[in-house]
């Protein structure tokens, strides 16, 4: 009995001493799309500071739900909330990093970047109005490219996703028909006139496009690159055809008007600028304005401050686009003004 007691005490002592040295942990949950870069940042940050980030990629919808319920220190969402929604739950939102979406095709003999498409044409293809690759509308933009008489299969995400949200948002901006018939959403009713095929996740879409002759799909740039898929050029708002490159993505980000976006609700699709890539999207972090625990809130903000300052290369390695410095400055000002604990600024 005595021994047992001793053992229990000893065990207690071990548990207590380890917890005294335990890492500070910050908890986040939400969007799957930025998960790789958050994980990379967290790994590096942990090495330097010992602070641990526990991020669960459960989807944007789940991220919003969890931050509203206060079960996490921050939530993450690909689709920004509007100002009213933020205010209703006492939340603030800021962009963490950007990504870009490209159209990918599978046409034998066609190399990456060879095919030219415009936003309207992309919408018409997904609407099922343009059904074959040798259609006059495609040929018109692609003189000199040999287009086969192959039917078009349009591949979309079968799971609800921020990528679909941003893709359909882009189509709605460039095509009135798309806007009125299908609209914008993380999951939409895909027009039945086209040969539709739904793949689960970016990987699923990439896989279907890779395999199906005549397929067209939309994926995040990193997936197009790692899968060796033939991405297309796209015509941007200024009427220029651009290739998906880091420079083109950054141009879109730089030309975006963040200063006039209440609650940082800004979708970067179809931005002006001769070099801007038309489908670019930021992913967002959600936090409460009123923080119950000042120390944790501080840790979260310190993590993102570090990421903005030191995470650019890690992000670029994974084909994400870092936020421009002027936007970072705006975000940090917002932190100072809006995030409070007991009425005092946390940051």
């Amino acid at each position, binding site marked *: 009995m005595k021994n047992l007691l001793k053992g229990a005490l000893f065990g207690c002592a071990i548990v207590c001493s380890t917890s005294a040295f335990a890492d500070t942990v910050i908890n986040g949950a939400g969007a799957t799309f930025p998960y790789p870069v958050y994980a990379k940042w967290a790994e590096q940050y942990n090495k330097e500071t010992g602070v641990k980030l526990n991020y669960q990629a459960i*989807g944007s919808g*789940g991220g919003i739900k969890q931050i509203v319920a206060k079960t996490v220190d921050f939530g993450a969402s690909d689709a920004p909330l509007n100002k009213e929604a933020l205010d209703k739950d006492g939340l603030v939102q800021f962009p963490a990093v950007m990504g870009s979406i490209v159209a990918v095709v599978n046409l034998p003999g066609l190399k990456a970047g060879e095919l030219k498409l415009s936003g309207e044409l992309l919408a018409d293809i997904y609407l099922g109005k343009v059904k074959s690759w040798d259609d006059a509308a495609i040929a018109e933009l692609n003189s000199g490219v040999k287009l086969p008489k192959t039917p078009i299969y349009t591949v979309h995400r079968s*799971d*609800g996703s921020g990528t679909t949200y941003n893709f359909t948002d882009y189509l709605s901006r460039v095509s009135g028909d798309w806007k009125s018939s299908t609209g914008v*959403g993380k*999951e*939409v*009713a895909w027009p039945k006139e086209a040969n539709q*095929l*739904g793949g689960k996740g970016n990987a699923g879409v990439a896989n279907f496009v890779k395999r199906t002759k005549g397929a067209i799909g939309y994926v995040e740039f990193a997936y197009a690159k790692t899968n060796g898929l033939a991405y297309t050029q796209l015509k941007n708002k200024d009427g220029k055809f651009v290739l998906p490159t880091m420079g083109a993505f950054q141009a879109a980000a730089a030309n975006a008007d963040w200063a006039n976006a209440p609650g940082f609700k800004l979708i970067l699709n179809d931005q002006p600028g001769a070099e801007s890539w038309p489908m670019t999207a930021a992913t967002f972090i959600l936090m409460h304005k009123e923080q119950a625990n000042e120390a944790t809130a501080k840790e979260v903000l310190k993590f993102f401050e570090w990421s903005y300052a030191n995470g650019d290369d890690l992000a670029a390695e994974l084909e994400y686009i870092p936020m421009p410095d002027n936007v970072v400055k705006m975000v940090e000002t917002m932190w100072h003004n809006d995030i409070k604990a007991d009425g005092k600024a946390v940051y």
Partner: protein
Amino acid sequence: MRAISIVDFPWQGDNLFRRACFVSAGLISVLMFCIMLSLIFGAWPAMEKFGLSFFTSTEWNPVTEEFGALNALYGTVVSSVIAVMLALPIGLGVAIFLSELCPAAISKPLFIAIELLAAVPSIIYGMWGLFVFAPWFADGFQIWASDNLSEIPVIGTLFSGPPMGVGLLTSGIILAFMILPILTSLIKEALSTVPKVLREATYGIGATQFEVIVKVLLPAIKGPIFGALILALGRALGETMAITFVIGGAQSIDTSLFMPATSISASIANQFNEATGDMHISALIGLGLVLFMITFMVMGTARVLLRRKAK
């Protein structure tokens, strides 16, 4: 001091045991009831808004918040029926081979191999189906079928369409693999319950092995085969991850088995995470309720039929 044992109060031991069992059994019913209640509760907003049209409408549009379950219902039922139709002959064949024809030395390892199929997680089936089976199926069978079978009247439309590899038929085939272990082991079990005397007597009057199997054994286990079939169907109806990968995720009903479709479980798995708006979530829970009801009805019917057969 003498320890108090249960022997001193025999009536109490019995009583306690009976009560414990009763509570355990009761807990199951209560649990079932609670699940059903919470499904109905969650699905109520959608049911209230769409009424009966929830079951008959093919509209599934999260943007305009119009929801109908028919697409998913169709995909679920058709893929499961395909699975059962494909798995039954194979399962029967394997079971008969294992219990009647196969030398004892191979029978055991073979049976273990079949049982191990059940231990493969369903997401593995899904990934294998998507990355290995579907491309092979598209280039092989689907191209051949659309060249040769699609001209045949009536059943031709089932096999027409682009060779995309995924779709209803692929889902059915993958499901068939998944329900094979349960079918095989149940049928094998049933075969082993047929009295030895029955076989010996039949052999004794000069029957061949084929005649013994077809005329004696199979009729003797008709009931259990049917029961196994229904259990397998129940498994197929509810299967989620594998289906989500290979069914193609298209909210539509098509006459061709090659075309992508969706099932109830795949729709829920695909959309629940990112569902925005209460109506979307409610509609997804409504789908869950529909699946619950179908499975309940299938199992219920099986019970009734089996009981009738037993009499």
